[in-house]
Structure formats: C-alpha cells, structure tokens
C-alpha cells in the first residue's frame, strides 16, 4: 500500500506539467468511447430500417411507398461515427506518446543528476548492476505502463460505464442479461490473479535459485574443470532444474489461464444474450424488424462488454511492474545529497600544510575503522601510508576530499577545516590517482583533459609527456583523437594508469593522492609508472598509499597504520632503525636472503 502511495506521488511529480495534455486525452477518450458505444445503435437502426423496407417492399400493395431514406441516414451516421472515433483515438494516442516519451526522458536525466549529487557511500554499498537496472528495466517498465496502460485504463473504464448506460437505455431486461455474469467473471479473475501471484512468486524464487546456481558454477567452471567435478555439477543442476520445471508449470498455468478464460466468458455471455434476447423478442410481441435490430445491437454490446475487463486484467502485471519501478527510483531520489557548506571558503594554496587531528571514522555505526588518527603534513612533503590490508589506509584517502565525513576529530588545510570549505573548490585542488582508474568513452584527448576541458592541446601533450604516455599515443593511427571506452580499450593496465596520471597532471592539484596506483601491474611496469609518478610528486604536497614498499622508500615521512591507529612514523632510515613493525614488513617484502 505504501508502494502505491509512493508510486502515486512519483507519477504526480513527473506528470504534473502535462496536466493539459492528460485532460485532453481524457476528453478525447470520453468522446471516442461515446462514439464507440453509440455506433452499434446506428448499426441496429440500419438493420431495422432495412428490414422494414424489405417488409414494405415485399408487399406488392405498398411497394411504391418503400423508401431507403431512413436506412441511408443511419448508415451515414454510422460511418461518421467510425471516422470521428478513429480521429479521437489517433490524437489521444499521439499525445500519450509525447507525454510518456518526455516524462521518461525527464526521469532518466533526473536519475543521472541525482546520481551525480549523491554520496559515495551509496555507490559503495549498492551493486552497480542493481543501480544500472534502474536505468534499464525499471524505466522501461514505467514507460511501457504509461504508454500502453494510461490510455487503456481511461478508455476501458469509460467504455465499461458508457456501455452499461447505453444498454440500459436500449432495453433494461436485455441489459440485465448482459451484465448478469459480471460478478462471476470478476470473482473468478480475482481468485486467479491471487493464485497466480502466489505461484509466480514461488516460480521466481526457484528460477532465482537456479540462475544463481548456474551463475556460480559456470563462473567457477575453471575450478570444476581442474578438479574434474563435472558430474557433481550436473547432478546439482538437475535438482534445481526439476524444481523449476515443477514450479514454473504451476505458475504458467495459473497466470496463463486468465486471458483464455475471460475470452471464454465473453463468448458465453454473447451466446446467452443471443438466446435470451431472441426468446424475449418473440415473447414481447414486438415487431420483427425492431426485434431484429435489438438483438443485433445487444450482440455487438455483448461482444464488446468483456473487452474492458480483459484489458484491465492483462494490464495488471504491467502496472505492478511500473509501481515497483517507481518505488526503486524513488529509493534513489530519497538518498541524501552531499553536503556543501553555504559560502564555503575557497581553497587556493597550501602554505602551512595539512593536519589530521584525532580522526575517528566508521563506515557502519558501531564498527569504527579509524581510532584517533593524527597525521601532520608540511607543505611540499611526500607522505606515505603503509600497513596491512584493512588497516585503514584507503579510508584516510576517502576522508581527505570528503568522499566520506568524519565521526569526530578534524582535518584541516592551512588551519581551515575541510567541512568549512567549498566542496568543489576542495576537490578541484585535490588530485587522486586510483588503483583502478576509470576511463570514459570519448577520445584519448578528451580523457586527458577530463578535469580541465578547456585546456589547450599543448598543455595536453605536455601532461602526456610528463606521464610518459605521449610516445605510445603517437604510435596510434589517430593519435590523441583515437576513440576509447573503458570496456574496449587499447591500453594495457599499466598504460591505463599512465593515462590516469596524465589526467591528474592536467589539473595541477595542490594536494596529490596516489591510492595503490601500481597494485595491478607487474614490478617492471611498476618501475615505469613510478618514474611518471615521481614527475608529478616533485614539489607537490602528496599522500601515497602503497602495497609494495619499493614505491615509497623516498618519502619524506612514512606513516604506519595498523588496525586504524598510527603505530610508527618517520622516514625510511629512522623506521628501519626503530626495528619495529615497518622494519619487519620491509624485511619480509624486500630483502632476499
């Protein structure tokens, strides 16, 4: 129910500006429906008039008075009604296509905008696939529902009401006969929908488990091959497959039976109307011509009477999916934005250095990762953070440009707390080279100029040279204009990292952060990247996180983190002399005995 309310708000928000269009659609639907339910009356009239004409004509005495004028006028009215009906349908369908298309576009861009404003923690705690599905299947479902269901709902409801009114005006007894089976049909439909939902849910559960099994097994196929486990794997599959076969059969029968059953009900109702109608005409002593017309009209109604019910039941799943889609997009819309202080201070230079004072931080409440970390960085210094996996190195980096905010303590640049600074000014001046650098679709040049799109080509080439990637780029046919994307890249892992370094050099950051920038490459490539990194670090305040100690031996200061606390601090020589944790790490990793 809360889903429904949320979905209502969601659609109200996005459809509000199309109120006029929707109103026109509603009006046109009513017109089209009126034309549709009125048409059978003219058809009945035409047949009645023709029958009367025939009777008059058949009698030689009255043949001269036989006239087809009434027949012709009924027929012409019928044709105009059909034409206007088509025009009304066309116009409302065109309007709906515009509204559905435009509002889905607004939703899509809104979702993207929201994504750019949200906090990093959301992305760290939700899978990419799940977020992406909101762009694809959820928006698709919403669009389909708006495009198809909107008109169908309007027209089904008005058609249903219109038809009932028309029928009762034509003949009360026959109208009662036509609607008599409705409660049976509605109850039947409700029972089947409830059952179908239950069994389809069970079916989806089993399918999910089977898909999970297939996914896990085939992704781990190499282990299966190397351990010769193929037979066991097939045995496990068979169990899941048999279960799915059974539960899907049930689900499909219950969900598949609704439509044919409703169509059967429609045929049955038509038969009933023909039978009862004909008997009635005989017993009520009305003229043969009028009786004939009446039966023709009600056969038309009976054939159409179930259409709205059938459409509404077949729309049920579609609407359900749209409501789920709206809920999932709403979930994203309700996420908190990043906080940017009003009138935050601009970051221009780093003259006095950076201080971390008694920094406490936790990703999840109650599970503190950093327990009072103090680090002092003088301007121009290179500080290295080392420590075992899970010691909190990367967490410190996440705090420096406010991907996350502290629990307590403070981080200051030249004495100003970063919370007080303009968020964007802070980030523009803090450059990060990540472990797994993402490149974007576009040309190589666009990727290097990523942080400074208005840079000149000379600046770009200078950055590429400093990052030692220029020579490679020049070997490509299209040079800097070569199109790349992250998935389909011409770069090796090491070259990709050089690209990311060039991209960072372009922005000339005041503070540089290198987060395990070489952990995905072999040590020979690492040495090449190291040379490029030395170019960037020179004369700049920088933080370097390293998995392999080789890359940080020259640091001005090495900070050793363990379990979220600083346990040692000093330069390489001093720390070796101390003969503590760092010295052990170093000997294990670097010294070959």
């Amino acid at each position: 129910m809360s889903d429904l309310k949320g979905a209502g708000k969601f659609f109200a928000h996005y459809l509000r500006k199309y109120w006029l269009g929707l109103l026109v659609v509603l009006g046109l639907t009513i017109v089209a429906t009126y034309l549709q339910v009125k048409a059978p009356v003219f058809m009945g009239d035409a047949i009645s008039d023709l029958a009367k004409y025939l009777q008059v004509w058949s009698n030689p005495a009255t043949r001269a008075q036989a006239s087809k004028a009434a027949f012709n006028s009924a027929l012409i009215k019928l044709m105009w009604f059909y034409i206007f009906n088509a025009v009304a349908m066309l116009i409302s369908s065109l309007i709906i296509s515009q509204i559905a298309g435009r509002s889905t576009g607004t939703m899509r861009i809104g979702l993207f905008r929201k994504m750019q404003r949200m906090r990093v923690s959301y992305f760290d705690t939700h899978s990419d696939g799940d977020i992406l599905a909101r762009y694809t299947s959820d928006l698709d479902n919403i669009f389909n529902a708006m495009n198809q269901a909107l008109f169908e709902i309007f027209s089904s409801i008005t058609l249903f009401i219109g038809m009932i009114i028309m029928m009762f005006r034509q003949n009360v007894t026959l109208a009662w006969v036509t609607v008599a089976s409705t409660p049976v049909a509605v109850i039947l439909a409700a029972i089947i929908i409830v059952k179908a939902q239950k069994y389809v849910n069970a079916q989806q559960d089993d399918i999910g488990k089977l898909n999970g099994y297939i996914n896990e097994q085939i992704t781990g196929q190499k282990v299966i091959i190397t351990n010769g486990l193929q037979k066991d794997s097939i045995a496990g599959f068979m169990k899941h497959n048999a279960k799915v076969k059974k539960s899907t059969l049930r689900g499909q029968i219950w969900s598949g039976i609704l439509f044919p059953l409703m169509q059967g009900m429609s045929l049955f109702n038509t038969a009933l109307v023909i039978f009862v109608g004909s008997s009635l005409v005989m017993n009520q002593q009305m003229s043969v011509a009028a009786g004939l017309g009446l039966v023709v009209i009600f056969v038309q109604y009976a054939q159409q009477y179930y259409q709205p019910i059938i459409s509404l039941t077949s729309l049920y799943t579609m609407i359900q999916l749209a409501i789920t889609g709206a809920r999932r997009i709403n979930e994203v819309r309700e996420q908190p934005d990043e906080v940017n202080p009003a009138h935050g201070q601009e970051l221009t230079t780093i003259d006095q250095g950076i201080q971390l004072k008694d920094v406490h931080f936790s990703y999840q409440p109650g599970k503190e990762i950093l327990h009072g970390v103090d680090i002092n960085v003088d301007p121009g210094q290179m500080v290295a953070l080392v420590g075992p996996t899970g010691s909190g190195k990367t967490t410190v980096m996440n705090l420096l440009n406010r991907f996350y905010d502290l629990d307590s303590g403070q981080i200051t640049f030249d004495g100003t707390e970063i919370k007080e600074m303009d968020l964007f000014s802070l980030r523009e001046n803090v450059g990060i080279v990540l472990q797994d650098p993402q490149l974007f679709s576009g040309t190589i040049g666009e990727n290097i100029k990523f942080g400074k799109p208005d840079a000149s080509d000379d600046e770009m080439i200078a950055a590429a040279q400093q990052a030692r990637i220029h020579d490679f780029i020049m070997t490509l046919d299209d040079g800097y204009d070569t199109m790349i994307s992250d998935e389909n890249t011409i770069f090796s892992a090491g070259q990709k990292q050089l690209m990311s370094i060039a991209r960072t050099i372009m922005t000339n950051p005041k503070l540089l952060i290198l987060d395990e920038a070489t952990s995905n490459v072999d040590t020979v490539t690492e040495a090449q990247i190291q040379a490029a990194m030395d170019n960037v670090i020179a004369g700049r305040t920088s933080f370097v996180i390293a998995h392999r100690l080789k890359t940080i031996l020259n640091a001005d200061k090495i900070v050793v983190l363990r379990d979220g606390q600083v346990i040692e601090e000093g330069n390489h020589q001093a720390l070796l002399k101390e003969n503590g944790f760092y010295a052990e790490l170093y000997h294990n990793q670097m010294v070959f005995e």
Partner: protein
Amino acid sequence: MKTFMRYLKRYRSDALWATLAVAVIAFVTLWQPHLLQDMLAAILKKDDQTINQLGIQLIGLTILGIIASVFNTIFSARAAQGVAADMREDGYRQIQKFSFEDIEKFSAANLVVRLTNDVNHVQYVVMSVLQQITRIPILFIGSLILAIITLPKLWWVIVLMMVLIGLVSVFAFARMGKYFMKMQTILDRNNMLARENLMGIRVVKSFVQEKSQIAKFSESSDEMTDTTIHIGNLFSILMPAFFLVGNLAVAGSIMLVGQMVTSDPGALTAVTAFVSYLMQILFAIVNAGFMMTGVSQALVSLNRLQEIYDTQPSLTFPEVPDENLSGAIEFNDVTFTYPGDEKPTLQDISFSVKPGEMIGIVGATGSGKSTLAQLIPRLFDPEKGSIEVGGKDVRTVNEHSLRQAVSFVLQRSTLFSGTIAQNLRQGKPEATTTDMSWAANIAQSSEFIERLDKRYDAPVEERSANFSGGQKQRLSITRGVISQPDILIMDDSTSALDARSEKLVQEALAKELSHTTTVIIAEKIASIIKADRILVLDHGQLVGMGTHHELVRNNPTYQEIYRTQKALEEA
C-alpha cells in the same frame, strides 16, 4: 529450428492436445456468428422451437470452448516447461564438456545469459504459440471461408480490407525499422554512459566534472526521447487506422447489402454474421503481427542456444583405463597460440622436471607464465610439440587420471556456496576432518577456520562474501593440497597473502609435500626464491633456467625483475 523440433517432439502428445483444444476454441468462435445468423432467420420466421434449439446449441458450444481453453493452457504450459527444462539441461551438460578455451570463447557471463534469458524467451514463445498462434490461422482461414459462404457477392470487400491493412502496416513498419536500429545504438550508448559514471563516480567527483557529465548524458538521453516519440507516433497511427479500415468495411458491407436486399432477402440476416467474420479477420491479422515480433526474438535466442549445442569441445580425453602418473613433467618443443592471436603465446619451450622438484616460473605480465602452467593438466592442447606427465603424453591418458595426479590452484580463488567442508571435498571427495585440518595447516587457513563457530561446517556465502581475499586464497590452497597430489600447480595463488603467511605456506609445502612436484608461478621473486629451479619467461620464450643465485648472476631478464623488487641497500 531442427533442434527445436526435436525437443518439441518429446512433448508431442502435450503439444497435440494443446493444438486440438485450440482448434475447438477456434471452431466455437467461428460457429457462433453462424448460429446467430440462423437465430435471426428464426426470429423473422417467428419460429419458437428453432430458437430454443439454437440457444441450447449456442450455450453448449461456449461451455465446450471454455473447457477447451482450460485444457489448452495446461497442455501448453506442460509442453513449454518440458522443452525449456530439457533445453536448459542439454545446454548445461554440453557446457560441462567444455574446455577452458570454449568457456573463454563464449565468456562465462554470456553462457549464463544463454541458459537463463534465452531459454526463457523460447519457453515464453512455445507457450504463446500453443495458446495463440495455431488459433490465428484457423480463425483467419475459417473466417475467410465462412464470410465468403455467408455473402459470396461481397468477397472483394474482404480483399480490399486486407490490402488496406497491408498498406498501413508496410508504411508504418518500414519507417519503424529505421528508428528501431537507431534506438538500439542510442540505448547501448546511454547504458554505457550510465555505467561508466557509476564505476567512475570517484573520478567524476574528484575532478568536479558532475556538470559536464550531466550535459553529456542529457544530450544522449534527449536523443533517445526523440527516437522513442518517433516510434510512438508511428505506433499511434496503427491501431486507429486498422479499426477505421475494419469499421468502414463493416459499414460498406451493410450499404451493399441494402442495395441487394430486394433481390436476395437472405442477405439481411446474413450481414451480422458477415460483419463478425470481418472483425475476426482483422483481429487475426493484427494478432499475427504482434506474434511475429515475439517469434523473431525467440529465433534469435534459439540460434544462440544452438551455438552451444553445436560447439564441439575443443578437447576430448581418450577412453582408456585409469593409471597412476608420477610427478615427472616434460615439455618437448612446445608452441602455443591462442585462437585469434597472431603471435604465439609460447614458443619452442622445452624442459623437464623430476618428481618432487620445486619449480618457480617468473616473467612480466603477458610473458606466458599462466599459459605454460595450464598446459600441464591439459587445459589446452599445444599447437606444436608435446607435454608429458609421468612419462605419458597427456593426450593419451584419461581425464580422471590426469586430474587425480595434477592439482591446480587458480589465480582467482573461487569458492562455491555451501560449507567449507563441501568446498574442500571438491579436492578429495572422501576427505575426513583429519585430512582437512592437515591441509588447512599447510595452507595457514586453520587459524581462522578454528575460530569459526561451526569450523569446517561453517557456511560459505555466495561469491564467498564472508571471507576476505587472503582467506579465500588460503581456502583455495587448502582444497588444492588436500588430495596430496603428485603435481601441485599454484598460479600466483598467494598474491593476497601477507609476506609472513606466504613464507609459512612455503615452508609447510616443503615439509609436508616433499614428494610432490610443485610448480609456482609468481610476480614476486620472494615467492620462488627457494625453488630448486626457476624458469624465466619473456614474450613467450624460455630465456633462462636455474637457481636464484645463478640467474641473478647471468640472466638479464631476471636481473631486471630482481632490480625492481630488491631493497635499497642491496643495490
């Protein structure tokens, strides 16, 4: 398509009953207007008795129709489920015959999609074909014949209606095709933009490029909106146009009947039936159009499944008796090229290893280390030359014997959901708790397993999310050593271990598995420094072989790797 018919044949009787039931439904639908026509004639004649008779016939007929539709649904679902389950099973069985190369050719993710989504498409279409499509031709042809019998003089009205519907469809769909192609391209681009921004959100934020990315995405999204609306407009024309054509045909027929009613009075009662048949023809054509889109999608899926069935496993093992293989390994002039590559990954490699030796393999990324190791358990076949294990060419022994002798610990440690014990028993099905703790002691995994509540029965979650990278690697090594194999291959499988644990694993391996031939592939020289021999690979060639001390002295490739890893003061 041929394969598909083979599957459908297995459910021949279900499909047959479903089709029969549909035929009954179609017959009922067709016969109703005919009875109506008789009924109207009876009213004209004021024949009470005929009316009653016809009424009972009408109602009996529709009840028959309802029963038939229930049966049709049940049998259709049975056939569809049967076909889907069988296709999925055969696909899965086939994949289990695949080699590394076959898996890589398709990619694991792609195979999963084929077994899930593609099978679903086929299932859905089988269901709707059995429920609907047989009904469409029956209704179409039946209505056509009955309409012509009812009012033979108006045959040309039907033809005219069909031609007009055809023209409208051709007009709309020809235009739509162009937009559909464009739509697919835009859709792919849009998804790529969303995906890269999602994965690179830290990059976007740290370079403060939110606005430029929004502009880029908006442009692409607007183009998508425009295309959607173009397609929507074309669709908007279809339905009203179809109905207009059908309705005008109805009005036209009545008008024509009015002209001929004096010479043919029967036409008056026939016209309602004729009009019903006209509508049936119209619906049949429209439904056929919608069905075609579903069927064409299923054909694509069917082809994708067919590709799996048609893939001949690139490796097959001979059916020969089991044999015990010793730990000796021999490479004779081996050259290997990955399919599609121009340059060979390995070139003219020859060396031999005695049982119980410890061999290290080093080289830069892409030098062919992993490929070399994967040739030993015959995960690939070489292009040239031969590989022997225990003195036997690996192509002449059966799969079971080879897997028994060689244990391979992969670079990416994969565990399956279940329990720790279930995962370890993949290495040795009859393993006892003693075996497990022995192996866990070697792999340094016992320290964390012992701390778990259920120890070896502790659960492993999906994607082994409840273990850290280092723990996963240690469990994977445990699984690799539990069978005390003759040959143990570790493909960079200690990369996530800290230096201390790695050392302990190596020491335990040397002590507990001293008779096992161990092949260790490593990035770090520290991992293989104690090997009896080290093979140095460079661009697919074996450029050096010897102990660490020998190589440091005389091998330039090794020296460069060493230089990048050794400590300052040793330089």
